[in-house]
């Protein structure tokens, strides 16, 4: 397999975004691009004009140990048939990154979700209301320090069924020992 298309994309990106972004080829039809928090919008603007018109998703990864959130913009070019992951890191203390709506209109919903699930703020996004959760009172649930098991046990506490289980187990045992006719 040849990586001609990927190489040429990398060359173009390196040429245009030499100082602000680092590009690497992951595999066939997949590239990665690392950039700084403040440079994301110009980088995305360039990539869109380059042909990456399809924003497939915006993901967020919580790197708890590093104290950072990683925002991953997932782009695809219908012309070159290649995808690129644009990654940037923002601090966990004050998570804030400019909205990508001016470039990709569809970013609105993705940013809304990340705002709700991670508590990342997107200045410029007019619609940062809750998307999936309603009357949510806990911390943003997708953060690594949110323990869903503890939260679920506290909120939805299940009934203790050990007694019933014991009765059931005794029945099974009785059947096994031949006390009861099957």
């Amino acid at each position, binding site marked *: 397999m040849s990586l001609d298309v990927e190489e040429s994309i990398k060359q173009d990106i390196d040429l245009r975004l030499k100082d602000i972004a680092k590009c690497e080829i992951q595999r066939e039809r997949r590239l990665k691009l690392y950039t700084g928090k403040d440079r994301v919008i110009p980088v995305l603007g360039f990539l869109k004009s380059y042909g990456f018109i399809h924003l497939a998703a915006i993901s967020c990864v919580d790197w708890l140990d590093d104290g950072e959130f990683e925002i991953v913009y997932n782009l695809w070019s219908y012309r070159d048939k290649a995808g690129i992951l644009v990654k940037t890191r923002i601090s966990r203390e004050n998570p804030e990154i400019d909205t990508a709506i001016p470039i990709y209109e569809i970013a609105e919903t993705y940013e809304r979700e990340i705002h709700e699930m991670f508590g990342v703020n997107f200045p410029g996004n007019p619609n940062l209301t809750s998307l999936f*959760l309603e*009357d949510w009172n*806990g911390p943003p649930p997708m953060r690594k320090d949110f323990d869903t098991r503890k939260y679920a046990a506290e*909120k*939805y506490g299940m*009934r203790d069924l050990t007694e019933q289980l014991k009765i059931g187990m005794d029945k099974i045992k009785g059947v096994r020992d031949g006390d009861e006719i099957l």
Partner: protein
Amino acid sequence: MGLFKFSRSRSLWMMHFCTGCGAIEMPPTMTSRYDMERFGIIPMATPRQSDLLLVTGYLTVKTLKRVVRSYEQMAEPKYVIAFGSCTMRGGMYWDSYNTVKELDLYIPVDIYINGCMPRPEAIIDAFIKLRDMIDKGEANAWKNYRDNLDWYKQNQAKVFDINKWSAKI
């Protein structure tokens, strides 16, 4: 009175509310292969007209509010069939932060169907069981709700703000 009871068990109108993934086995049950209209069960568009609520799978808190509200709008006598493991003890989502685990804490349940997800045969079996239960006068979960309203409301209040979300009976 016997005639009313007979007709009650043979004409169950179910509410068209797909609350979870169990809803994927409802269309086959409704349509030509399994055809539940044989038993007089047809989907109805609104809670007012329906007798049977099918909780098809896990309920998120957001859906639970709507389910409770829809359930309270149904005219008595009304019956509830809950689908799948996730309505019993949380099933696959036992540690999820957004789904309720035991459904009968919040609304009364006549019949649980186990499995993930129940096959159409299991669903039809549940319908037949419910029919027998109504004939024998055992399907009384709705009376239970009426009698123990405080207990149910108390449980609902643990999960959401009932003053905001649930109608007063």
